[in-house]
C-alpha cells in the first residue's frame, strides 16, 4: 500500500491535458541581434492577461536550445510609455504601423532591437468546485476530514507580429485543463493540477520554434 501511494499522488497530480494549435500566416526567422517582446492584452472589461503568465512564457523562451532574447514586459511598457498602456496599445497591425510613424516610438523600437511582438490574451477559469472539508480543533488536537475538487481551464492565444514587415505572421492557441483534488484525512493533501504552468511551458516552447522559423 505504501509503495502505491507515490504512484497515486503522481497520477492524481498529473491530470492535466494541454492542446496547442498553430496557425502560420507568414515566414519567420530571427537574427542574433534581434529580440522578441511579449505583451499581455489588458483591454477587456472582465479579465486581464496576468503579468506572471507573460513573464513565465518569456522566461521559457530564453532557456534551452535556440533560446531567444526576450525583453521583459514591464521594462518595455515603461520605456515606451504612454504608447503601450491598456487604452493606447495597438490592437491591429495597422495600428502598429500608425504607431511606428511616431519618431519616438520607432527610435525606441530600434533601440530595443524588437523584431517580433507577441500579444498574449487569455485567462484561467476555475469551475466545478465540489466537496467539503471540515476542520476541528479540540483539547486533544486538530484535524480535517473531507474531500474537495475543482477544474481549471487555461485558454491563451498568442498573436505574433513581425515588426519589420508590420504583418501578423501567425497565431498560436493553447488550451490546458486539469482537475485538482484535496483529500483530507486528518491532514489535507493538496494535489494541484499545474494547468497554467503547463500552458506556459507548451506555449513558450511552441513560440520559440515558431519565431525561429522551425
Amino acid at each position, binding site marked *: 500500500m505504501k509503495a502505491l501511494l507515490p504512484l497515486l499522488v503522481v497520477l492524481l497530480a498529473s491530470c492535466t491535458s494541454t492542446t496547442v494549435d498553430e496557425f502560420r500566416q507568414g515566414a519567420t526567422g530571427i537574427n542574433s541581434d534581434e529580440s522578441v517582446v511579449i505583451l499581455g492584452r489588458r483591454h477587456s472589461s*472582465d*479579465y*486581464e492577461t*496576468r503579468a506572471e503568465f507573460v513573464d513565465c512564457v518569456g522566461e521559457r523562451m530564453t532557456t534551452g536550445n535556440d533560446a531567444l532574447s526576450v525583453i521583459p514586459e514591464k521594462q518595455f511598457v*515603461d*520605456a*515606451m*510609455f*504612454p*504608447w503601450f*498602456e*491598456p*487604452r*493606447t496599445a495597438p490592437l491591429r497591425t495597422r495600428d502598429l504601423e500608425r504607431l511606428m510613424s511616431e519618431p*519616438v*516610438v520607432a527610435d*525606441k523600437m530600434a533601440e530595443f532591437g524588437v523584431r517580433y511582438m507577441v500579444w498574449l490574451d487569455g485567462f484561467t477559469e476555475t469551475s466545478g468546485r465540489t466537496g467539503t472539508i471540515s476542520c476541528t480543533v479540540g483539547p486533544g488536537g486538530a484535524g480535517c476530514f473531507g474531500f474537495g475538487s475543482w477544474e481549471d481551464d487555461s485558454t491563451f492565444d498568442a498573436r505574433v507580429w513581425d515588426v519589420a514587415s508590420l504583418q501578423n505572421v501567425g497565431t498560436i492557441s493553447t488550451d490546458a485543463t486539469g482537475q485538482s483534488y484535496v483529500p483530507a484525512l486528518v491532514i489535507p493533501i493538496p494535489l494541484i493540477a499545474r494547468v497554467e504552468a503547463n500552458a506556459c511551458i507548451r506555449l513558450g516552447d511552441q513560440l520559440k520554434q515558431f519565431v525561429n522559423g522551425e
Partner: protein
Amino acid sequence: MSYSIQSIAKALCASVCALVLASCGVSKVVIEGSYPTPNVAKLPLTLAVVYDEPLRSFSYIEYSETGAEEFNIASGESHVALFDAVLPAMFQSVVQVASLEDAEALGVDAIFVPAIDEFQLALPYKTKLDVYEVWIRYNLRFLTGDGAPIADWVLTSYGKTPTESMRTADSAINDAAVVALRDLASSFSLSFAQVPEVRDWLASR
C-alpha cells in the same frame, strides 16, 4: 513581581477587544507607485503648475453595505508625483507654485491647475467580478500666464487589477489605482494638444 488572575484576565480582555476593534476599523490605503516619463514631443512653453490643498490631501472613503467606513484611500501625494513625472516631459520648463497668484507673478506662458472631481472604487464582493476597479474623474484647467482661462475640461481614468489568492485588498486597490493614474498620464500626455481650446491657443502663438 506577581499578577493576580483578575489583572491578567483584564489585560487579556483589553487585548482581545483592541484586536476586534482594529479588525473592524477602516483600512487606510496610501497609494504608492512609480510613474514613467512619457515619450512625447515637448511643447516650447514655460508652465506653472498649481497643486492646491484639496488635490494634495485628496482621499476617498469607501463605505461598507452597513454604512461603516471600510477603506480610506489617500491618493493626493501620488497624483502630485504623477504630474511631476509627466509635465516636465511635455513642456520645456515646469515650475511648481502654491497658488494662482504666485503663478501669475512668475510671468510664465501658461498655468495648469489639476483637480480631482470624483473617485470611485468597485470591490469584487460588491460587483461579483474578479477584479478591483478604480475610476477617477479630473477637472483640468489651463490658463494663460496672467490667469485668463484657455481651457477647462474633464478627463476620466480607469484602472483594474484581478483578484489573487495571496494578495490583500489594500494591495489590490493600490495596484488598481496606480493603473488608473498611469491611464491618466497616458491620456493626458497624448490628448493635451488635441483639446480644441488648447489646440487653438497653441496655433495662435
